[in-house]
């Protein structure tokens, strides 16, 4: 193989040398052409795509599960030619942990109120260009300028809701409307309760029941809340935020501490369920659209956020995922299903709304909450 081998080597070497020049001469791929497939928006609808030449082809949305209508994504792709790719997380803390661990490539995230303040303090959010968000005028001012982003420099509201409780009117024939029914359950409810698996929500509900603020850092008040929770524990079937819907529908529990959206969807499956915002008040929360600083397609993200605030789109979204919409125009023009608008569990009367409280980051006091939660987990 001497001669043959040598010849082969030379041959290959020449090919290699020839290939050397190749990359320099190789034409760079043509710049992505603007998709001619994107149709002009249908007549009568405003064009929501902004400057199409600046749009990216794909947009990465990091969202809660089942928290955007597929139809909305399809419409955006049809109208603007941008494919939205959705990835999901199951808690604000997971979102924060993933971003802090260096996850990049997400263009839009949907943090809740208190997480927004943490992310702003950590410098993780990009400032929004209001010029790209003309539809902001449709948003109810009551949901703007909140404590976590007073000038809405970084976020716009997406959906809002409450953390009350839901019970099965078929199993409990009387009207329940107080946290007392949850923390001092009647015999037919005992052992058939599920509470959220969330220390701030559970301890907060106990604080509210006692008439304290849900954001207290006072150890005495927290101690009293702990006693309430320890007394309640024997009657609690499970602490869960993910499966409470199924447990209610299956009849495994007859009363559940639950978030609005889950409650409404549970009721779709079992009409005898009723969602209650307790008389003492409860948590109000708001999920917000924000752009992380690491986003690659900021302009497209702003166009999409603006698209989501368009009243007809906001209505499609609200009708599908059934959370409270902050879109005043969509509500006033009754674009949202009246059955939802008339549900006090989703759109509560003003008097009740005033008794609600935002969960605010309690700083170092979170360790007091953590300790109570752990003690609750140890107590059998």
């Amino acid at each position, binding site marked *: *193989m*001497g001669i043959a*081998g*040598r010849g*082969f*080597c*030379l041959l*290959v*070497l020449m*090919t*290699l*040398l020839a*290939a*050397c020049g*190749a*990359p320099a001469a*190789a034409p*760079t791929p043509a710049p992505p052409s603007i998709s001619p497939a994107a149709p002009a928006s249908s007549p009568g609808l405003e064009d929501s795509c902004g400057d199409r030449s600046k749009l990216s082809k794909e947009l990465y949305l990091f969202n809660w599960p089942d928290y955007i209508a597929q139809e909305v994504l399809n419409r955006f792709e049809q109208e603007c030619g941008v494919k939205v790719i959705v990835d999901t997380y199951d*808690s604000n*803390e*997971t979102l*924060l*942990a993933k971003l*802090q661990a260096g996850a990049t490539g997400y263009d839009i995230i949907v943090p809740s109120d208190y997480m927004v303040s*943490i992310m702003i*303090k*950590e410098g993780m959010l990009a400032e929004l260009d209001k010029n790209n968000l003309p539809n902001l005028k449709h948003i109810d001012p009551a949901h703007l300028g909140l404590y976590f982003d007073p000038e809405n420099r970084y976020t716009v509201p997406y959906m809002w809701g409450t953390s009350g409780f839901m019970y099965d009117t078929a199993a409990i024939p009387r009207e329940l409307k107080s946290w007392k029914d949850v923390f001092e359950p009647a015999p037919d409810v005992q*052992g058939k309760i*599920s509470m959220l*698996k969330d*220390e701030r929500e559970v301890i907060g509900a106990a604080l509210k029941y006692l008439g304290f603020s849900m954001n207290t850092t006072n150890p005495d008040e927290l101690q009293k809340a702990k006693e309430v929770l320890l007394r309640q*524990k024997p009657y*609690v*079937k*499970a*602490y*869960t935020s993910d*499966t409470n819907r199924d447990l209610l529908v*299956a*009849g*495994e529990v007859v009363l559940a501490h639950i978030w609005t959206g889950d409650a409404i969807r549970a009721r779709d499956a079992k009409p005898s369920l009723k969602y209650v915002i307790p008389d003492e008040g409860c948590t109000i929360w708001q999920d917000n659209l924000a752009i992380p600083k690491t986003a690659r397609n900021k302009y497209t993200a702003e166009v999409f956020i603006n698209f989501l605030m368009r009243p007809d789109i906001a209505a499609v979204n609200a009708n599908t995922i059934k959370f409270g919409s902050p879109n005043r125009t969509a509500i006033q023009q009754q674009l949202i299903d009246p059955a939802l608008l008339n549900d006090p569990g989703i759109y509560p009367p003003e008097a009740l709304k005033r008794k609600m409280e935002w969960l605010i*980051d309690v*700083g*170092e006091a*979170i*360790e007091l909450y*953590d*300790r109570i*939660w*752990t*003690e609750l*987990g*140890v107590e*059998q």
Partner: protein
Amino acid sequence: MFGVDIQTRKGRSLEVFGLLVISGLLAFFIAGRTAEMPWRIVMGGMGLLDAALAATWILGLPLIPTLVLVRAALGLVLGLGMMFALGLVPGLGLCFLAMALGIAAIPRARLPLLLILPGTFYLLIFFAFAVGIIAVISFLKRGPYGGIRWLFVLENYQRALDPLYVQIILLSLWIALVTTVLCLLIGYPVAYAMARAPARWRNALLILIMIPFWTNFLVRTLALMFVLRSDGPINGFLMAAGLIQEPLSLLFTQNAVILGLVYGELPFMILPLYATLERLDFSLVEAAYDLGANEWHAFRRVIWPLTLPGVLAGSTLVFIPSVGAFITPDLLGGAKTMMIGNVIQYQFLTVRHWPFGSALSLILMAMVLAATMVYLRVGGRERVL
């Protein structure tokens, strides 16, 4: 003249040359398709290096083999980087070429050393380095919003000694112990029966043991939730049979947690037990009978000691994941029983107290290490699998 001594060189000259050419071409190809500046230059540089090495390799200069090995190591590291920067396929392609290059270029006698390199590298980066980070963080202070502050403190370990956490650790150990004992009681007879089954059945039986692995653990646990519900099949059967009037509370209890753990870990007990029992020379057992042993004595004095390595291996494999379990207590226990795994998960994700979570993780690791040491002392000297 080129390649005068190409036949006289030891090793695998032609393969090395060919690999250099191929990886050079690949590097150029990737460089041509990459728009991002640093990577384009890196890949182009690598292609030039390969071309230069290929050319000089034929000349047979003394230093070149060493340079080729350096190039192989460089390719391995760069390839791993490329996996993230340019995508899985080009990155893995570079890695494999680099490994092939290394294997071809290294003298045969040294080859085994090279072969353990990728594994060692992997363990170093993803295990030793990661555990090192956790160890460092466990001595720091929590930052105001999660994160860490670079202050050396021991408070995280002091806090772990709080009776509250000691209690949780003890409970976790207890649950893991009960799980292990139950797995052993259920698994030993199964493994024994499998080993004594006719040879043609054994593979089929082994596959039956493996079947649960075909489905994700989380899905199986959720299915178990359904089985244990008040309106699930167990309660339905018992009530239809008239044995109970009211449905039993099966789900969301500590026993449900143990049930779920036993179900999940049982195959890890059966497989090593089967491996030892299958190799057991049963003529020894017959000899024991011939010498007057009854069945209990034959088991106690002959079978048990001979299968002890399998028992220890299985118990270790079951005990370790059980101590740190967190999904099962969450789903089947309804988060009413907190195990140490839940506390750690909680510290990292919810409270965002990384230092305390790290300290607890290290304590858990130390306990697992202690269990493994016991295993090594008692039974590890014999071959287990």
